């Protein structure tokens, strides 16, 4: 059992990452769901069929070449475990799921948080989309931080 089972915090070694080449090419999904739990809405959410499972308890298998980084899956994942990183812009962007109040608005400066809720940097909200009551918040993130930023906190 990995250390994450004590801490609740995944490390980069725990996650299946797209290759550096793929990250350079365009927006791409990062799924931080590493346990065999009975759950598959991400498979149904992807209209490019880039997420697959043989059985419902499989870990999502991502075809990074097929993924276009559209972010539809981000708001469909009940575990809020799906993120999009995009390094085609400068700064890069990270899209994170968000279900708190207040909901940030485009142009807001927010705190970008890491997997332990610690502030990594300040970020600008560049896009907001929603599916039901779950938001996908896209924020600008320095390239060096794209593997750390996984949360958003609206400034008080």
């Amino acid at each position, binding site marked *: *059992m990995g250390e994450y089972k004590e801490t*609740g*915090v995944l490390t980069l070694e725990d996650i299946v990452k797209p290759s550096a080449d793929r990250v350079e090419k365009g927006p791409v999904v990062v799924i931080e769901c590493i*346990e065999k739990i009975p759950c598959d809405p991400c498979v149904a959410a992807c209209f490019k069929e880039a997420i697959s499972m043989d059985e419902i308890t499989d870990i999502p298998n991502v075809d990074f070449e097929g993924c276009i980084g559209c972010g539809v899956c981000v708001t469909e994942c009940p575990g809020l475990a799906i993120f999009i990183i995009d390094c085609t812009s400068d700064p890069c962007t990270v899209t994170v799921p968000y*279900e708190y109040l207040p909901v940030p608005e485009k142009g807001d400066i927010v705190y970008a948080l890491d997997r332990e809720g610690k502030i990594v940097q300040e970020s600008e909200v560049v896009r907001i989309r929603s599916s039901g009551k779950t938001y996908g918040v896209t924020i600008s993130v320095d390239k060096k931080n794209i593997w750390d930023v996984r949360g958003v906190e609206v400034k008080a």
Partner: protein
Amino acid sequence: MAHGVPMTDNRIRKHPVIDFERGEELYFDFEGKKVKAYEGETIAAALYANGLVKFTESKHRARPRGFFCAIGKCSSCIMKVDGIPHVRTCVTPVEEGMKVERHGALPEFPKEVVSRSPDPIHRDVDVAIVGAGPAGLSAAIVLARYGVDVHVIDEGERQGGQLVKQTHQFFGSHLEEAGTRGVDLAVELFEEAKRSGVNIHNNSTVLGCYPDKRLTVESKEGLEIYDTKGIIYAAGAIENFLAFENNDLPGIYGAGGVQTLMNEYGIVPGEKVLMIGSGNVGLIVSYQLIQAGVEVVEVIEAMPHFGGYQVHASKLRRAGVPISTGHTIKEALGTEKVTGAVVHKLDDSWQPVPGTERELECDVICIAVGLHPDNQFLRQAGAEMKYVRELSGFVPIRSEDMETTVEGVYVAGDSAGIEEATVAALEGKLAGFALVEKLVGGSKELSDGKEEVKAGIEQMRKGPYGEYPRKGVKMCTLDEEVC
């Protein structure tokens, strides 16, 4: 604060996921004071919203006690309502002009016996289902579609069982409504049940279940006796409690109880919560507390690792909530209500590690240390029961079709063993199909339906988290030659 009603309003006005639709404003009398409530609230919810934390007291030493389960299972919130003692205020809807007062642990029985109807009402029905949760409603829909006269009996004010407080998107297969929030699923199931012609009786409490497929029920109309051709028992689960010093103080609540208060009635339990237990219930309720604007100071877990899904734990950690594994609670602090807690580390043999005690400031301690099946009436009906640790308690021996050892009496959902809502709904469907076969006659369509549902259940029990139910169900299912 222990006596009287302070002037506060703990109701949530803005929430990221739930729109609370409150009914008409109304007023009732609590110990001589006029208290505001909204139609649709229970007495307990309305009192808590107004700042009351002491609901009753212990027989010895008159220690203050708060509510615990909030769903009518624990009797921690009983009061005298319009002259009748021992009323479970958490499942009793508040009404204009009602007179409510607290009483001691052993109140006097009223001298003048209040009876709503002198003679019991007899009902001859095809099928009675106990519990309008995912299992009960799913079963009822199947039965009604095949023309069976089906009656669902539930003690709650609303239908959907515990789905009504599940504001998170459901896990499970997208074919079985995953990704839908439980609260929306409750509405969908209820609407479908109504369309299919299911009779639903809410605010009705089952008092007994007898071997000749007879149920006794208390409703607003009085005592009702149901004579049936089949019963499906789907009453759900009861939250477990935990032993530690001062564990009876107001402010120590079941995590599910807090979820009911917060997500169903839109009332915050307090300001700072310590969560005991890191199974999915503990992790999910912690997240929902944050969504409601409540601070979760820490989640502690006695095991060396957290119990629920990684994705739920990760979500909490991103919100800055510490999870301390290998920790337990030593005592709750406070006299009239919780003001804090002392926690400490445990060593490999579950003994406290000296010098690791720390004090935490909190006004609520949530207990999320598991559930056990609510099925004692099946025992009364004569069903053979067995203790199965993997299913979290005593469960009835059943056939592959969910029939207990009492002919015509079925079980489904958490009453059959603790799992989750998708499996509960599937077990309900399975029991429904089996009862249709029994009452209407078998067909290929029915046996295909059963096979499909069984395959669905099997799917849900795959993977490491399905190990317990897989093992447990084998130990109490007759056709699998173990019992």
